[in-house]
């Protein structure tokens, strides 16, 4: 339920960023949020989508300009229902949410421990909010260590560097328990009915929560007073030896400067530049970043009611997936090379066609451009329009024409054609 968008931090654009901004034609970027990052996994083979997402292009608007508007949309009823549910949980300094989290996350002996719900300055700009979140985390850890309170951070703001750009991320909530462990809380409006929920929606929620875990790890690493060169390893997205060397310097640097707070906007971006692939995809970071639990908590309406219920989510697989998708973001520059210099999608949306697509019918549920890409794939006679699995059946025959021609050439398709004819002739 992260609907917010944030302007990026004011700092000189990198050449890549300048190029991507131009591509949007100066329109404001649709900020990369956790939902967008989580969606990278939907069709990672698609260059077109990779570039559009990296550039923050509004794909729905682009699809409309291309004459194939997306069939997406959310009913106003569903939106209202989601807002009502969330508002109730957060009412009066999160009374209901805190009660639920206390039941779910706190051990019995800590049941009486008071909860701290610090003000995170929600009305301020992202830089201020991110800094406030960091100080709140520090306070929360010391409260927990001293046995004073456990803490519920309501809509904190985290920063994560993705392929050279700062991304603001707003988890629904973070809990710092009396054991000093941090838990990402994800609030969704789909129901948990008799203990089960729509697996596709839970999967999407888990991928989103994984993004927050990575951002939280990166933040923790920057806060870690004991951060050494190996702490670079702790930034979730860079849990590799290569990344350790690549990002440790900046990691230590950020840690050193982060105390300057909001006055140093550039420093609130924690570098998490991914590089190479992890040695073990499930490696846990060291230092303060290890405080972030890899089990998130999903909060949903229960059964047919408006009451909330929680379920744990094991995020270890999604963490590995997200990490590798982030690592792939660095290839955007190469992909951009195929676009004509100065291409502007607002003026010439057709330029998008020079980026290779990887259409499959699954796109229809996952990407706003699906109708456009489908018509291209159909026009090209690609067999993918019949389903991802069809390609596996047909091997090197990638077009409908070629496959039908092969029915006359012997082999399995010819036998299939003979059997069909024989059966239909009866």
């Amino acid at each position, binding site marked *: 339920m992260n609907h917010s968008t944030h302007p990026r931090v004011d700092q000189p654009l990198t050449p890549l960023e300048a190029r991507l901004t131009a591509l949007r034609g100066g329109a404001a970027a649709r900020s990369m949020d956790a939902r967008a990052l989580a969606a990278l996994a939907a069709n990672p083979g698609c260059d077109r989508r990779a570039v559009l997402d990296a550039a923050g292009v509004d794909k729905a608007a682009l699809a409309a300009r291309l004459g194939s*508007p997306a*069939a997406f*949309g*959310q*009913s*106003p*009823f*569903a*939106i*209202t*229902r*989601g807002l009502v549910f969330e508002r109730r949980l957060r009412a009066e300094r999160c009374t209901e949410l805190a009660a639920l989290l206390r039941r779910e996350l706190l051990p019995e002996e800590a049941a009486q421990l008071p909860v701290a719900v610090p003000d995170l300055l929600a009305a301020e700009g992202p830089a201020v909010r991110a800094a406030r979140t960091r100080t709140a985390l520090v306070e929360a850890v010391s409260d927990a260590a001293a046995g004073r309170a456990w803490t519920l951070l309501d809509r904190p703001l985290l920063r994560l560097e993705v392929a050279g750009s700062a991304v603001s991320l707003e988890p629904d909530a973070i809990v710092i328990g009396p054991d000093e462990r941090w838990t990402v809380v994800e609030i969704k*409006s789909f*129901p948990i*009915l*008799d203990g089960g929920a729509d697996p596709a929606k839970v999967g999407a929620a888990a991928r989103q929560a994984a993004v927050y875990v990575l951002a939280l790890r990166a933040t923790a690493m920057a806060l870690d007073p004991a951060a050494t060169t190996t702490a670079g390893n702790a930034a979730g997205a860079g849990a590799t030896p290569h990344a350790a060397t690549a990002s440790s310097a900046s990691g230590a640097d950020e840690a050193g400067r982060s105390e300057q707070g909001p006055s140093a906007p550039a420093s609130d971006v924690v570098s998490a530049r991914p590089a190479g692939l992890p040695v073990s995809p499930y490696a846990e970071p060291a230092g303060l970043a290890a405080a972030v639990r890899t089990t998130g908590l999903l909060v949903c*309406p229960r*059964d*047919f009611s408006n009451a909330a219920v929680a379920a744990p989510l094991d995020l270890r697989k999604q963490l590995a997936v997200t990490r590798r998708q982030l690592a792939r973001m660095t290839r955007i520059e190469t992909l951009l090379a195929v676009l004509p210099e100065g291409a502007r999608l607002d003026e010439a949306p057709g330029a998008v066609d020079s980026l290779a697509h990887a259409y499959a*019918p*699954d796109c*229809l*549920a996952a990407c706003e451009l699906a*109708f456009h890409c489908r018509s291209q794939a*159909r026009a090209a006679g690609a*067999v993918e*329009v*019949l*389903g991802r*699995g*069809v390609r596996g*059946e*047909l091997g090197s025959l990638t077009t*409908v024409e070629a*496959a*039908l021609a092969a*029915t006359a050439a012997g082999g*399995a*398709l010819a*036998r*299939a*054609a*003979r*059997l*069909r004819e*024989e*059966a*239909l002739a*009866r």
Partner: protein
Amino acid sequence: MSLLSTLARLQAVRSGVAQPLATVRHRHLSERPFVLVPLAAAGETGAPLAVLLGQDRQHPRLLTVPQPLDRDLRFAFLARVGDELLPYLESFGGDVELLERSVKDPESGEKTVEVRELCADAPQLVVPNPGGVELLGLFGRSTRFRRTAEDPDPGPYPAPARVPLLGRWLTHVSDRANVPGSSMLLPLTTTLARHWATGQSSLEDAHLGALLAWISPPEGGRGEEAALRAENGRDERGQLLVPPAGPATDPDFDSLLLAPAITRYDAARAAQDERLTQARAEEIDALLGAVLLPVWHQVWQGLDLLRTLPPGAHVADRWESDRWSYTGHRDRVAAGEPPQPLHDDAVTAARRLAQREREQVRVDLEEALDDPLAMAEHRLAGQAFAGEVVEVQPAYDTSGRSPKPRPLVTVRTEDRPHLDPGGEAHRAGGPASQKAQLVELDAEAGLLTLRLLNGMGRKKEPEPGTVPEPGEQVCFTLFELAPRQSAPLPDPEDTPWTHGGPPK
């Protein structure tokens, strides 16, 4: 997807019209089905918005919930659904066949004759798609435990009297829809897609309008264009030309038409203006009726299409299983048993899984036996072969006291079964469970020589008709042609410690 159905889709792309995937109809169609086109309220779990229902194609009944957040209106709606549906469901309970079977008394070992009732026919509900099945299941889940005013302890929100009963029936039919081969609650898209291959993907086939556009494109048109229009053609008000078959409504319909209408209705109600409230409710009826009616006609059109195919030979047998299922539920309701529990206990879960697996094997086998196109799948996969008998040599097994017939049958086939000498095959369309063993294989010439092992009677010479003649077409499978029996399971109260002991 198999290569054979992929080929059918490729052919559909080329021809612009869906291609047959079956030569017979594999599901039972009732003489008097009950069609429901339900809509759900967006954002509310299992909350009804409207339904168009009935048995009369010309005169469907429209029921709506003008304010889906209002619990009383929801239950009033479900009560009216019950008024329409329960008489239909119950109408099959009276006409029964009496079947006798002998049972052994477990104590005395004595055999006695038991007479059982089997309802002569069963209800058949038809919904547009699997989403409709799921929604009916949710209605069942949300109502079967409700207390009514007639309960000793009716609770704060008693439901109308027959609502829990409706819930139990809806739970039963939606559970039954998960049993492979069942026809008690048919989702139309899946049923159509079993019989026709379109030139689009199976994901797109889930859209009833697009699917029908491929199966019967407009005169002179191609499936592809017709499907595109069905998917996202919009009128000048931004509304879909072909409304979705539910249970979700189009978000643009919700925001542009429905939401304002509900707001007006709420205002009229708040003003306690009964006449206006009624008028506002009728406006909502008109809106919902307008998006439901096209789907209603599509469903009947789909049924018409299915009726053009003759039923498969085993369809009636499977329908008999549905009749048993119906009879069983009728009896449980009559006996005053409690509603179906929320979760299966370990034993019930295992039983139901075993039943579904058995029925899946059965429907696959029966479809292959009934339909050469289904058998072709197995032939292409090397799991069956068909061809002409070119030679029959009498031969005998003389190892026992009296010689038994073991004739050698040579079949010429273009198929390439994954069968090596010594391997077993089962004859389809011959005497029941006749087995054969491959003796010799000439792959080049496509000649297989098989020894028939059984099904030829007890005499030295085979009974007439049990051995194929030269020139006859035969078909053998590498798999058995009857599902295996499922192993017995303990009673729930004997659930072992490995599975948590007896349910509490």
